[in-house]
């Protein structure tokens, strides 16, 4: 169709405008598809990785090793086991090396680079992120316990995708290394770390439902107890010793009674003998005493047995049990990207709407300018559908080009947008149909739909109306009379603005979108920095030691508290998250709210971090799950307290002891200003304030790249939206501008009429956009960090508003200057040119 030839000429004529739109689409869709695709890429990569490395279905830790019998029983449950024992070596300078044997069948190391065969006796495999973060290279040596080992392979393992030493840890630590060695080296290194070895087992379910089999396994393990001779916990040992002492005293007492009775019997007999054995009563007495001695013997035996039975100490062997699906170390990486997906779809929708609106303004403008041609073609007998094709073609091609390129860039960018700090193999590139549809098909469909609507509306007028370019009949005479009184330029400007009200609305929408994207960047960064700062303020202790049980003696300068680790379902994360209930002493030096906590054993206080995660408020019933004992625990929330690292709830320590039926004076956590010397046997974890704050700060630093991307994207959108729409408005008024210039208007006056109205739109966009951004971010920031094991509140620094305003003003001025040049370029003889 010959008139389609026109479409390409129309495109070339409006090339720069279309280029602007195409750039917005490319930028927008690249970010949207890039982020959206991370979730697919992560899922695909991890699925294959898990398959390859035979990921666990769960893991558990015991105080003692399983016996051969236990292993057989577990195998009978249809479960394959692997000893995944490890021990941590403090390598100084806050470096921790966790040593594993190279895994044989579950959670096998995936070699990223280097030697694939088992490391030799002077070789190790080292985890990837540790190597990259610390600039450790393949074939470097690593010193472990004064001996150098050559790093022969760079590896990742599926049970440490989120590289935390303890599952409940909030952040990863780049100084935490996972090291895999052969059995010889393991045994050799173990010699000097015997006490630190963790009897950790990983398992896979051979067939049937993994969940059910895991539950069976759990039940079995729960019943295992540690033989008394193998208990190492000093608290338990001292309790046992006390029991034995008591028993010994009882034994002694019985022996005394028995001995006394025997003495009586013996004495009586002697007396009777001396008296010639004639006194019958004495003989009876002697027999009685003998009976007492016998009876006491029997009684002693029975009482001993009864006491033994009563005081038999069952020390549970199991202290940690996690199904893989509840183990953030395993599933966090995939979960973290789910949020990206939702976010990107939302952002994509906004961008698509913006683009289609810009397109529709374009088309409306083109059609206005073209009404003579359309009218002529219409009069000639061209059908509406044929004309529609003509006017849809260019926007559709432009949007298609933009979205195809943008989507392609997005796929290309995916790798670089994958959340940092997770340990994973090289990402598999995915091209999910749903994103292709979203990135390419959706913008095209929206563009066609909106353009069809606009064009159809125009074309539904009669050919004659279009030919004569008759405006719809609107009488606003009274208004016109009034505006006459005003000065010419402001009134002309306002009538001009009214004429272009739709363009201004779209301009407003585009500017607000740009500001929202900018606010998002600022809020993400601000929230991270603020989080790191407030953690530093909130965390008053330097060291926190979580212990198995109380120590024999509380070390000098340490404060006692009680830690119970539970989990709680979080809507925002869509999964169970680890939470902690901390019982604190009334006169706590480290928690200044301790004094006001209620002594009621059913009341609990939520930290602000927990409130962000759960949105709970006073009076709410909070349901915690004890994963180890498989039961729910319910507390009533009584208030809130300020604490930000991790999802913490607080109670008075006595109330908590009462609730959990623990002895008076019981504790399992020590807080201190200085490092304490604690036997590794008794310690579950050691956290320092420095590592907490460092981790939070490292997040802030990591987000910097993203913030940059958001800022650039927002400025690009902001400038392009102004340029495209204002240029479009100017082109529609080109005849009028030329006429005004012909009759003697100066450029400055023309600027006032045609450009200055955009100042108000820009200011309005700022006034609406920034507070709207704030409100939106208050909601979005916690949701975006949904799977994080701590609540992060959205925070925008006051200075960020200044920076944003400055950026926006500069971008605005730059666009204004460009548009001014455009006005200057419209000459007076435009009006003289034959417009046909």
């Amino acid at each position, binding site marked *: *169709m*010959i*008139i389609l*030839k*026109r479409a390409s*000429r*129309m495109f070339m*004529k409006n090339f720069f405008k279309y280029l602007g739109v195409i750039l917005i689409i490319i930028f927008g869709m690249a970010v949207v598809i890039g982020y959206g695709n991370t979730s697919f890429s992560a899922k695909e990569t991890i699925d294959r990785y898990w398959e390859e490395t035979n990921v666990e279905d769960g893991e558990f830790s015991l105080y003692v090793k399983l016996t051969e019998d236990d292993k057989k029983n577990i195998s009978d449950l249809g479960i394959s086991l692997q000893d995944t024992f490890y021990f941590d070596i403090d390598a100084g300078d806050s470096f921790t090396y966790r040593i594993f044997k190279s895994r044989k069948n579950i959670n096998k190391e995936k070699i990223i680079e280097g030697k694939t065969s088992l490391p030799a006796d002077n070789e190790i495999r080292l985890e990837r992120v540790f190597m990259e973060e610390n600039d450790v290279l393949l074939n470097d040596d690593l010193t472990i316990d004064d001996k150098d080992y050559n790093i022969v392979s760079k590896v990742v393992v599926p049970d440490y995708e989120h590289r935390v030493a303890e599952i409940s840890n909030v952040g990863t630590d780049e100084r935490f290394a996972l090291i895999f060695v052969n059995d010889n080296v393991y045994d050799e290194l173990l010699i000097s770390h015997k006490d630190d070895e963790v009897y950790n087992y990983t398992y896979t379910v051979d067939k049937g439902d993994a969940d059910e089999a895991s539950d069976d396994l759990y039940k079995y393990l729960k019943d295992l107890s540690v033989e008394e001779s193998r208990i190492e916990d000093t608290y338990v040992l001292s309790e046992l010793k006390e029991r034995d002492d008591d028993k010994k005293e009882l034994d002694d007492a019985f022996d005394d009674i028995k001995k006394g009775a025997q003495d009586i019997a013996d004495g009586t007999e002697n007396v009777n003998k001396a008296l010639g054995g004639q006194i019958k009563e004495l003989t009876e007495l002697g027999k009685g005493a003998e009976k007492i001695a016998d009876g006491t013997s029997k009684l002693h035996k029975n009482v001993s047995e009864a006491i033994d039975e009563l005081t038999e100490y069952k020390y549970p062997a199991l202290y940690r049990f996690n199904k893989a699906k509840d183990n953030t170390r395993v599933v966090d990486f995939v979960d973290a990207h789910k949020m990206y997906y939702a976010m990107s779809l939302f952002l994509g929708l906004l961008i698509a709407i913006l683009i289609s609106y810009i397109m529709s303004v374009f088309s409306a403008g083109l059609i206005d300018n073209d009404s*003579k*041609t359309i*009218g*002529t*073609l*219409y*009069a*000639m*007998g*061209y*059908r*509406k559908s044929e004309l529609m094709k003509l006017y849809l073609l260019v926007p559709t091609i432009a949007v298609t080009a933009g979205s195809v390129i943008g989507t392609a860039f997005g796929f290309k960018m995916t790798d670089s947008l994958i959340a940092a700090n997770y340990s994973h193999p090289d990402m598999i590139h995915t091209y999910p149909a749903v994103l292709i549809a979203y990135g390419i098909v959706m913008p095209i469909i929206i563009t066609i739909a909106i353009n069809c609507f606009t064009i159809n509306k125009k074309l*539904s007028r*009669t*050919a*004659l109306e279009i*030919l004569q370019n008759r405006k719809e009949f609107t009488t606003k005479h009274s208004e016109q009379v009034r505006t006459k009184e005003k000065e010419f330029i402001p009134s002309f400007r306002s009538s001009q603005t009214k004429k272009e009200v739709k363009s201004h609305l779209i301009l407003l929408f585009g500017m607000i979108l740009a500001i929202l994207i900018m606010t998002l960047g600022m809020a993400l960064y601000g929230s991270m920095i603020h989080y790191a700062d407030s953690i530093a303020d909130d965390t008053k202790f330097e060291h926190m030691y979580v212990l198995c049980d109380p120590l024999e003696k509380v070390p000098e300068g340490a404060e006692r508290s009680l830690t119970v680790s539970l989990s709680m379902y979080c809507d925002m994360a869509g999964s169970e998250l680890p939470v902690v209930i901390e019982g604190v002493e009334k006169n706590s030096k480290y928690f200044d709210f301790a004094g006001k906590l209620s002594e009621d054993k059913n009341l609990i206080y939520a930290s602000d971090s927990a409130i962000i995660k759960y949105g709970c408020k006073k009076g709410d019933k909070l349901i915690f799950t004890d994963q180890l004992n498989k039961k729910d625990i319910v507390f009533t929330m009584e208030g809130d307290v300020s604490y930000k690292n991790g999802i913490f709830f607080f109670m008075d320590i006595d109330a908590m002891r009462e609730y959990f039926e623990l002895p008076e004076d019981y504790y399992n956590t020590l807080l201190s200003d200085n490092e304490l010397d604690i036997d590794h046997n008794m310690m579950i974890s050691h956290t320092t304030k420095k590592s907490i704050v460092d981790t939070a700060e490292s997040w802030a630093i990591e987000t910097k790249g993203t913030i940059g991307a958001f800022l650039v994207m927002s400025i690009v959108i902001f400038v392009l939206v102004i340029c495209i729409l204002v240029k479009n408005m100017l082109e529609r008024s080109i005849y009028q501008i030329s006429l005004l210039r012909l009759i003697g208007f100066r450029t400055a006056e023309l600027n006032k009429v045609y450009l200055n109205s955009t100042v108000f739109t820009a200011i309005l966009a700022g006034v609406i956009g920034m507070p709207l951004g704030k409100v939106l971010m208050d909601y979005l920031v916690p949701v975006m960090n949904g799977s994080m094991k701590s609540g992060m509140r959205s925070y925008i620094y006051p200075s960020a508003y200044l920076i944003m305003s400055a950026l926006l003003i500069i971008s605005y001025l730059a666009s204004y200057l460009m548009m001014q040049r455009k006005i200057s370029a419209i000459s007076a003889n435009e009006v003289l*040119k*034959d*417009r*046909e």
Partner: protein
Amino acid sequence: MSYIEVKDVKKSFGSGDSRSSVLKGVSLTVDKGEMCGIFGPSGSGKSTLLNMVGGLEGYDSGSISVNGISLTGMSNKEAVEYRRSNLSFIFQFYNLVPDLTIRENIRAAQYLAKNPLPIDELIDVVGLTEHQNKYPSQVSGGQQQRCAIARAIAKNPNVMLCDEPTGALDYASSKIVLELLENVNRKYGTTMLIVTHNEAIRYMVDHIIKVHDGLIAEDIINTEKKSAKEIDW
């Protein structure tokens, strides 16, 4: 039966106080192949009448039929199809598509026709062979109007509606345009309605209609028809 039949057509614009009656009962008939001139003072309703015949404008009462097709109560869509298969327009201000060359403008019309006329012949007929690859803005008004005529005939229409085809042209250009129209009428037997202010044209048409104040003031068959070459003003 007449080819074009207009019967007692009335038309007014606006409503209420601003309502004005433009056509107050117009009837006329035009035969097939006839060249019909419509004359009358400005504002008398000539263009309105022409647009009605072209299906561009509706009417309040009466009836119009062209080639047996009744235009009364015709929908927008039907009007498009009616124009597509029957009509061509020639406007005072040419109305060429600015982004298409002279040749492409003509091809745009050819596209619509079932039996289009050969393009090179058309271009040759209107004398635009050497300008055919120029854009409308690159040629003179007279050349543009010649292009518009070529575009109009390209479709090989039954009826050609011309609203002041020479209105914007000088004497010489006007003569060429009129000769072209005459040739087309002779060669293809196209029925033509020509609205014009140019009184000289009355001598070259078959049928003279004069509109005055919304009514037909004169309806004469011209028996002493001259050729376009012969008339002068």
